[in-house]
């Protein structure tokens, strides 16, 4: 498929849906259909709106239409020695930029480099009134107006249809190695926090219950020096390890039971919920495969200063994302009304209330 600007058609579709009172289900590559709550509505296909519109490596910025396959963006960056530093998971070959940003999905490098939202510089959207709006821009520093671009990250399309997104990009590290150390959970958490207080180039971490895996990235000399301090054995194909982890293709993720994602204070001790655990992000992200009651999992996450998402499986019409306090829910509903007064954009995808 060729580059194509479908923004006017998409706007017309949103306006028509608004007039007809039809809900829209925004979709492009459909690689994240599993994520969030199930919604009905007429499909609004954004995949026709695609193409990299601007990429100037010396500016460290890439701009592309939302339907652009993520893999094309990564190829373009790779050819110039750059990368999306938030290392987004694809969850399928058809993943697009729009879906990635709408879900605010970030991979192993998140704890050191930042999340998808940290790299968003600007975007163009269609709100629920069918208005085409631009926020932010293509520059690193921009504080004109409210940060609507970042508000779109993780909003699951409930506030607007993403049309174009500009992202900050970074050079690929010169050197990267992955080390494996046989450590239990407690020891792994302690070790990660010891390292965290030192200026070490740790750019990913994972604990699978048996081993702690650590990725070091940066200048050759820096990686070599850090390797001496960290110890352990070097993996022969570290890139493959992190790729399988990011895409949830490693053995841990193969299960019929629900997959939970817990985002917590990084130094939280191992939690007493029965199930299989896998840690990432220095302990701040914990995957849990478990049949334990949702209430138990959510309460435990809250006690650890965080929240829990029913990531895969379970009842997709029920409560997926962590419930909000009344005060926050009221703000969410009013923001939803501010962008989509008739509630036609992905209604119920995030919470049943809007």
């Amino acid at each position: 498929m060729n580059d194509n600007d479908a923004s006017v058609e998409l706007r017309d579709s949103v306006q028509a849906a608004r007039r007809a009172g039809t809900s829209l289900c925004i979709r492009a590559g459909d690689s994240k259909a599993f994520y969030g709550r199930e919604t009905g509505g007429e499909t609004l296909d954004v995949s026709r709106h695609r193409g990299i519109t601007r990429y100037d490596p010396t500016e460290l910025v890439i701009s592309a239409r939302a339907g652009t396959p993520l893999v094309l963006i990564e190829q373009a960056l790779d050819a110039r020695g750059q990368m999306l530093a938030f290392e987004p998971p694809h969850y399928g070959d058809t993943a697009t930029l729009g879906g990635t940003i709408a879900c605010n999905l970030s991979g192993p490098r998140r704890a050191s480099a930042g999340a998808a939202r940290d790299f968003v510089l600007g975007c163009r959207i269609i709100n629920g009134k069918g208005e085409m709006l631009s926020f932010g821009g293509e520059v690193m520093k921009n504080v004109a107006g409210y940060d609507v671009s970042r508000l779109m990250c993780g909003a699951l399309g409930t506030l607007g249809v993403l049309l174009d997104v500009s992202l900050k990009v970074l050079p690929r590290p010169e050197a990267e190695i992955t080390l494996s150390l046989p450590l239990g959970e407690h020891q792994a958490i302690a070790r990660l926090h010891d390292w965290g207080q030192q200026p070490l180039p740790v750019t990913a971490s994972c604990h699978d219950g048996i081993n702690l895996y650590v990725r070091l990235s940066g200048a050759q000399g820096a990686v070599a020096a850090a390797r001496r301090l960290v110890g352990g054995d070097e993996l022969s194909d570290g890139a493959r390890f992190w790729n399988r982890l990011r895409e949830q293709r490693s053995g841990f993720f193969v299960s019929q039971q629900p997959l939970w994602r817990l985002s917590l204070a990084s130094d939280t001790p191992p939690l007493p919920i029965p199930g299989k655990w896998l840690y990432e992000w220095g302990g701040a992200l914990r995957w849990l495969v478990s049949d334990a009651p949702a209430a138990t999992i959510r309460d435990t996450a809250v006690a650890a200063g965080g929240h829990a998402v029913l990531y895969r499986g379970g009842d997709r019409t029920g409560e997926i994302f962590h419930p909000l306090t009344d005060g926050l829910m009221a703000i969410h509903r009013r923001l939803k009304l501010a962008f989509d007064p008739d509630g036609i954009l992905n209604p119920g995808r995030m919470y049943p209330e809007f």
Partner: protein
Amino acid sequence: MNSAATGNRPAGIDRRYLIQQLQALLPSDAVLHASEDLRPFECDGLSAYRELPLVAVLPDTIEQVQAVLRLCHRLRVPVVARGAGTGLSGGALPYRQGVLLSLAKFTAILDIDPRRRTARVQPGVRNLAISQAAEPYGLYYAPDPSSQIACTIGGNVAENSGGVHCLKYGLTVHNIQQVKVITIDGEMLTIGGSGLDAPGYDLLALLTGSEGMLAVIVEVTVKLLPAPERAQVLLAAFDDLVKAGQAVGNIISAGIIPAGLEMMDRLAIQAAEDFVHAGYPRDAEAILLCELDGTNEEVSEHILRVRGVLHDSGATEVRTARNEAERLTFWKGRKAAFPAVGRISPDYYCMDGTIPRKHLPRVLKSIAELSAGFGLPVANVFHAGDGNLHPLILYDANKPGELERTEAFGGRILELCVEVGGTITGEHGVGMEKLDQMCVQFDALELQQFHAVKAAFDKDGLLNPGKAVPTLHRCAEFGAMHVHGGRLRFPELERF
């Protein structure tokens, strides 16, 4: 249109009644209403705008802040929150018919957690004080606005403050984890959490840089970083600004993200040199300061490579600071650039546009032409790594009409930034100052969307009214709304 958008507010607030009510909520010395007591609050760092509030309050507990906001909400009295008042866009300018809410008494560092690498602090804690408190643990707070010795973290969040290390370490929004805010109806919301993300919409991003329009910040949890093992700075001189600009792109192209990358032009170099004797080459057209930090090995590798890039880019001279004292001397000139310019001119006006770096030559050339046209000199100081320009317009406020001419000149510079795909403010905020330029940056629908966001938090428009987002009426008067859609404010110019 709602009241937040029109700025219409009920007239005739009974000042005496308001003061009485506030005195019932707060200790007597926390309610200031005599005009001599209000004078210190009349402006922020942008002193061209001055106004006295009806009354200023200095609560010292969150409950008091909640009580003040509940009262103001009930009486429909506008509230302007204020930190240290170092902002440069008039964001903390008092509202004549309103309450000035100072967070100056909230100065406690509540917790430093070296394992989690976080600091939980009250909003009135100074930016630099956080890094100082974290230093015993080998940690620091990365964003370092030039006012960091005085500015407070609450204001930093409200403005999404930057500094000289943004390209590598990000802005405030990248370095905070949680805030507690009080809404106009007195409710406390906790936004963010102890993890790296939170459920629902990214309200933390929305609140950051919202200029006190959405809620009042009463607590901030910031992320701390391990202090780099080593920092080293290079100083490169150029006989041509364009070459200096290209050198910046060449460093980035070499795959290196410097911790700081600053540029100064001839007038700024000379003013700084005369003031602090940093050893800058006085005859250079431009200098670049490039700071590299990280592990020992990394810095050594990068210094070698950056030296090579600078020479290849046509630098007439490249110096590496030989020791920490020299590194600080190199920085001293840059950090003193604003006061240095203050010495050579009765007044100066600091602009804050951001542009894609590749347009630097064109923008600097246009600024020079405008400077000649307006008859006002300009010294350029530039966060070159991230494209954030700080042209300093030299003027004399005592000469009739010169301030107005300066503001017009400044406005043209910001419009120029928008024309090349940049923005009217990189880090200082819109405040009162850049409302007209917001009409150039955004079209009517976008501004309406901003007003709708504001109304979702504050439907009566009581928090910091009249700031940050202009009314459509104002834009119509400014004469910019006809550019709706295309933004072709200057159709005769070449487009990018």
